[in-house]
């Protein structure tokens, strides 16, 4: 069943590893970490996002496309050529894994935005990329953009994490940050686009949970110019980060105070009057962006990785560090399996963000 037009609640496992000083490392450890939590998925979806994986094309936007029909590829390529300068295009290299099925046609494109375009006078470059993604996903049938950042890539599909890792040969890529997802959707799916991570520009999100506020979050985003094409909770989270971070210029702490807003009684108790005022204003303005219902998420952007849970922590999230890396995962075991000398390991507090930056600050 194609789940593209239905909203699928799912339980999941998530994991993220980030090098403290932007050292490159292969995708091997992230496969190991996410695969250690195999019980948290059911073989119906997993995926990876790697940052720094396309050093030779790092100044270009990279689109990953999945096609269910060859015809769709022609239409997308025509559209992309018209809108952008296509620097390079190729099929995404994959390995035959017998246990996988419903495999779509997978291509990647490295694109340059034409600075002469009239559109830039009214829109930013990022807005044009977002528009192109939304256009393809809503208007070109059987085509789906699943990655659209610079020097990063999302690789995902329907299968167990080890199978998907093997399929995309994740271990052949080198990145300075990886996040991964193992999915337990509550129905049968055959569509690869439904897997996580979900991304827009260089945001990538892996998400464990179900959002009860989905209906209003989605309407709020639609009023702000986003088209929700996927009907997944995760898409909504990615767009909220994009809206609040990129368009409203808010930092991660502030975004977290919106998505997992503190309770009114906590705000009342806040001693710092400025902070108290800010928290109250945020709740008044951004009530429709509050994410309600159980979730644990890892959000990555080119220079940082953050972990966040819902206000009463209905889903698990653990964070830790060793000499070289920061880690966030659903379970402690997923961190210990890749770090023998873990130093500082702790449970994320309900609704409080864990923020790790590539410059070693946290």
């Amino acid at each position, binding site marked *: 069943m194609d789940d593209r037009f*239905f*909203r*699928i*609640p*799912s*339980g999941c496992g998530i994991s993220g590893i980030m090098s403290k000083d932007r050292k490159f490392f292969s995708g091997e450890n992230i496969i190991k970490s996410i695969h250690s939590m195999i019980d948290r998925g059911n073989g119906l979806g997993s995926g990876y996002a790697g940052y720094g994986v396309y050093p030779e094309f790092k100044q270009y936007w990279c689109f990953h496309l999945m096609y269910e029909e060859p015809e769709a590829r022609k239409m997308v390529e025509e559209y992309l050529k018209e809108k952008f300068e296509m620097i390079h295009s190729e099929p995404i290299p994959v390995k035959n894994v017998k246990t996988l099925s419903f495999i779509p046609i997978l291509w990647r494109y490295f694109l340059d935005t034409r600075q002469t375009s009239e559109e830039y006078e009214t829109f930013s470059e990022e807005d044009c990329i977002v528009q192109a993604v939304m256009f393809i996903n809503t208007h070109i049938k059987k085509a789906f953009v699943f990655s659209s950042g610079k020097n990063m890539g999302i690789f995902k599909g329907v299968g167990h994490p080890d199978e998907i890792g093997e399929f995309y040969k994740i271990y052949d890529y080198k990145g300075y940050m990886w996040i991964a997802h193992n999915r337990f959707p*509550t129905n049968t799916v055959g569509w690869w686009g439904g897997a996580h991570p979900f991304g827009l520009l260089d945001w990538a999100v892996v998400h464990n*949970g*179900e959002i*009860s*506020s*989905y*209906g*209003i979050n989605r*309407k709020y985003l*639609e*009023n702000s110019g986003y088209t929700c094409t996927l*009907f997944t909770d995760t898409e909504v989270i990615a767009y909220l980060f994009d809206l609040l971070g990129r*368009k*409203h210029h*808010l930092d991660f702490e*502030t975004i977290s105070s919106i998505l997992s*807003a503190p*309770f*009114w*009684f906590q705000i009342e108790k806040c001693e710092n009057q*400025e902070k108290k*005022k*800010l928290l109250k*204003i*945020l*709740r*008044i*303005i*951004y*009530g*429709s962006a*509050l*994410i*309600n*219902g*159980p979730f644990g998420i890892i959000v990555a952007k080119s220079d940082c990785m953050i972990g966040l849970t819902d*206000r*009463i922590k*209905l889903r698990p999230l653990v964070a830790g560090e060793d000499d070289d890396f920061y880690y966030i995962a659903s379970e402690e075991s997923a961190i210990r399996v890749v770090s023998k000398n873990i130093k500082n390991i702790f449970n994320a507090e309900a609704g409080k963000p864990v923020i790790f930056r590539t410059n070693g600050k946290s």
Partner: protein
Amino acid sequence: MAKVKKISEFLVRRDEEKCIRCQVCCRMCSNDVHTYVEENDSILSDNLKCVGCHFCEEMCPTAAITITKNPSEIRENANWRKEYIYDIEKQAETGGVILTGMGCDKGYKNYFDHIILNASQVTNPSIDPLREPMEIKTFIGKKPDKIEFEIEGNNMLIKTEIPPQLELDIPVMFSAMSFGSISFNAMKSLAIAAKKFGTFWNTGEGGLPEQLYPYADRCIVQVASGRFGVNISYLEKAAAIEIKIGQGAKPGIGGHLPGEKVVEEISRTRMIPEGTDAISPAPHHDIYSIEDLKQLIHAIKEATSYKKPVGVKIAAVNNVAPIASGIVRAGADYIVIDGIRGGTGAAPKVIRDNVGIPIELAIAVVDQRLREEGIRNQVSIITAGGFRKSSDVLKAIALGADAVYIGTAALVSLGCHLCQKCYTGKCNWGIATQDPYLTKRLNPEIGAQRAYNLLRAWSLEIKEMLGGMGINAIESLRGNREQLRGIGLNEIELKILGIKHAGESW
């Protein structure tokens, strides 16, 4: 033509064995139904005078009285119902417009009864409101689209000024009921309850009695077409100001408080001579268009230094969504929409029962329209018109309302039995009357406690339902129509309501 012999609507039955001739019923009934006959120590009851308010039944110490509908079967049929035949008889006699009170009692589809709520199972844990915080705090007023700030060092300096807001501890307020249409004691009961619970009450269009100034900070005052009681201290004392264009019970119609109800205190509060009729014209005679409304909104904002929200109340009519959009663009901070089932103290029956649209549909189309236009943030939507229970409130919020006004439900908590005779001024429960003999029956302290209890009960029920859905803040339900499903609705109804049918998953 012969004079028609009247048939009573109700029968008063008295169990003679139980009746102890205490004559409480005789003294209590404002309609003079019961008369004591000394000669044979009996009590006669005139069925024709009975309005079915059940006051005597509840007061009778030995439970000797039962009020029932008159089972007399007049030859009615599917088209010519009893009510219509009697109405014609009345009009043939009097040549007048038939008046009535309370909200429309006709059987138009009540969409709340065709909408059901969601709950969490397995994939999403429900939340127990007894163990976890459950937030129903609501803000009424214009909201900015985004926060503006400057970064200075490590500090975030907030540049955004939040426009004035009403802070509600429950998304339920007491609807506009004027001094004149209801008694001082009824008003005071609601004022005390609103203040104690952290919500708001509304003066209606009859001014704010001086003795209620202590509750003015929790009071929304109305500016209606009659401008009764409107002066600068009235505006300044209030928490918010509401321009009343119309009400659900009588869209397009003005109001009329008969001179006999304009007693001394009402005359002072409304600023009109004692004993004169208080006439509210159908339109405001300084508002013949949306731009005139804009001027009045800004005149009021100027007068009150932009310190309090200014709202506009309209009845839900065919074109409600574009009208609402116009009101937002005219600068209102909140908009009140009153549906066809909205109550009244007096309205022509033909208007009450035939004009307007149900509030459920109005909420859905207004919320949708304002979102499409990208101006939903600029206004709060308060809805009114026939909210009977906490689930109605929750469904309205999920459809897109910010808060709900209750009028009839609040009066029922004070004793009202919906006899629909508010316009007679003979309310036995001391609510819709100015007769001191009757008003003293309503003790404002007790009334306040009962109205407060109602709010408390509904707030607990709302929290239970929210927790069941796995939601712990009311703002996550507002406009979240995914949590609703229709049952027994056709496609066009589902489309207007913006909900799926029961059985459809996400």
